[in-house]
């Protein structure tokens, strides 16, 4: 069983959703990355999305764009992101790590060498934002052959055919983009999101994560009961980027995560 499958099975028994923070590899500093991953887990992360920076992040809002630019300016490369995962795995064998990024850095490395290196480092899932299912059939198969879950996105605009395509080739979970926009954008209509997610969970027979636009504990409490996971990205990246030292970063991560972890641990229905 993959770590992701195991995680969702466990949380299913506990009756709560997974809390998945997103951080950009190499931001706010290189040295803080591995301690930051551990700090996030200690503060309640059930899994972590590690963003691999790309020079042209078309689906990201200003916060993650800037984080990517800073990371690239520090010389972050795919191999470094994988190395941080490997170091993290020395002391943590249970928390799933999902790489999230764009296709070109993977293509530059070569799909097969990437899959081998990612598995070897201890990566559990891969989200490639600009790889929709119709272009991703070979990738999905390759990743699965290396026991990595290929995670696809669905959006409010995705019709039945696209849902079926994701169901056919995706695994681990499905990432539901809660709004028509980019990461960190404003207000989604959460009732609409929850209705769609309820429908998707039935159709897909796979866990569904809600992301894009979840910024605080109130929203986590609102959406978590209707989802299998909640992803918080831009708000955390923004908070961490304001820190002036690594110690401050770790403290800020803890402080940011605590209310979210509390919100997500509330039994289902308690938020109403």
């Amino acid at each position: 069983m993959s770590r992701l499958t195991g995680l969702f099975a466990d949380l299913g028994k506990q009756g709560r959703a997974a809390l998945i923070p997103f951080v950009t590899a190499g931001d706010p500093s290189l040295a803080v990355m591995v301690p930051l991953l551990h700090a996030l887990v200690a503060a309640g992360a059930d899994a972590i999305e590690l963003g691999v920076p790309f020079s042209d992040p078309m689906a990201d809002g200003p916060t993650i764009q800037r984080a990517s630019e800073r990371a690239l300016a520090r010389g972050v490369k795919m191999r470094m992101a994988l190395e941080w995962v490997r170091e993290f795995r020395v002391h943590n064998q249970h928390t799933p790590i999902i790489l999230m990024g764009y296709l070109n850095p993977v293509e530059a490395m070569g799909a097969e060498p990437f899959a081998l290196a990612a598995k070897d480092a201890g990566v559990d899932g891969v989200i490639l934002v600009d790889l929709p299912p119709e272009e991703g059939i070979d990738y999905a198969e390759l990743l699965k052959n290396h026991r990595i879950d290929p995670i696809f996105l669905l959006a409010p605009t995705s019709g039945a055919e696209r849902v079926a395509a994701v169901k056919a080739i995706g695994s681990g979970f499905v990432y539901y983009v809660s709004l028509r926009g980019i990461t960190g954008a404003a207000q989604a209509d959460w009732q609409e999101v929850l209705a769609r997610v309820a429908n998707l969970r039935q159709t897909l027979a796979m866990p569904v994560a809600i992301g894009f636009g979840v910024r605080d504990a109130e929203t986590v409490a609102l959406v978590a009961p209707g989802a299998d996971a909640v992803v918080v990205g831009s708000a955390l990246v923004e908070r961490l980027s304001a820190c002036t030292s690594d110690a401050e970063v770790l403290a800020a991560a803890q402080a940011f995560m605590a209310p979210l972890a509390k919100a997500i641990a509330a039994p289902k229905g308690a938020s109403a």
Partner: protein
Amino acid sequence: MAAYTLPDRLGHFGPYGGRFVAETLVTALEELDQAYALARKDPEFLAELHSELKQFVGRPNPLFHAERISRELGGAQIYLKREDLNHTGAHKINNAVGQVLLARRMGKRRIIAETGAGQHGVATATVATRNGMECVVYMGEEDIQRQSINVFRMKLLGARVEAVSSGTRTLKDALNEAMRDWVTNVEDTFYVIGTAAGPHPYPVMVRDFQRVIGEEARAQCLELTGRLPDCCIACVGGGSNAMGLFYPFIEDEGVRLIGVEAGGLGLASGQHAAPLSAGRPGVLHGNRTYLMEDEDGQILATHSISAGLDYPGVGPEHAYLKDIGRAEYVAATDVEALAAFHRLSRTEGIIPALESAHALAYVFQLAPSMRPEQTIVVNLSGRGDKDIHTVAAREGIRL
């Protein structure tokens, strides 16, 4: 060659092209694909397009025999396809007219576009305002400084110009930002992409709206010389003017097709914008194609004296034509393009755009090696008025 029918249903030209975008955009692209498939076969749409190209753009434009320079070079006869004579001064308007008419047909009320040199932005603003539609143009901060006249032109035409401060603050980043706008406002907004790149159906749609260049040139060449040209030459940034010229000649095996990329300070310097000459395949802006990237797959900053060629990717059909050997791709440096800019101005009384001057630079190298009864058709894709400040500054002249 056998009948050329690409792209396939999902926009692939061999291994290139396709649709590599975030899920949020896929449905919008499918909707666009369907709307375009209907429009391109609709006599009413085609009649309006034709009428606009004739009455508003000023087509057909001439295929001009540049006799003086042909004689001076002592080789092939050079014919200039005068896209510079179009309304707004470049080939870009052919595509802007087509896409804005399609947007109106689809019931969209808001037009967005990206621009580098500003030519596509001006063309889109022009056609949007003519159709009574709101227009927002994304432009890198760097380009806004380099192309202040076009920025003002767009504003005069009623468009809002949004400065893009991310990444390298040039064309590629303007494209990213336009995509982000589109993802957010997809219901009422139509994104007019200016070059034959991007996710399917843009490369095929832009090619179709630009193929009028090659169709006219082919008929005009037959009329003027009694035969097809030996060679068609065009500059290649994203590649829309080149694709427009080349496409109607693809099945004419005897016609050499040559694309000229921006060699910047020279290919060896790394300071250029020539992905076909010196890049490798990857995925950017929704399609697989040749790119300028580092070994980690990060897109590199490019350099060209011409803002319109300053782009790290290229249309996927060019990537395919290169691989199958149907078209050849070479590069001309900043210095060579500048020399060609002056030479055409002084010999034929035509000031070419710096983009088009890259194509001319290669023509001037090639023509002397050909015979006087041979012909070269070169796409004079735009006029050089927009570039006079760049040229003057480079030569230490204060205007």
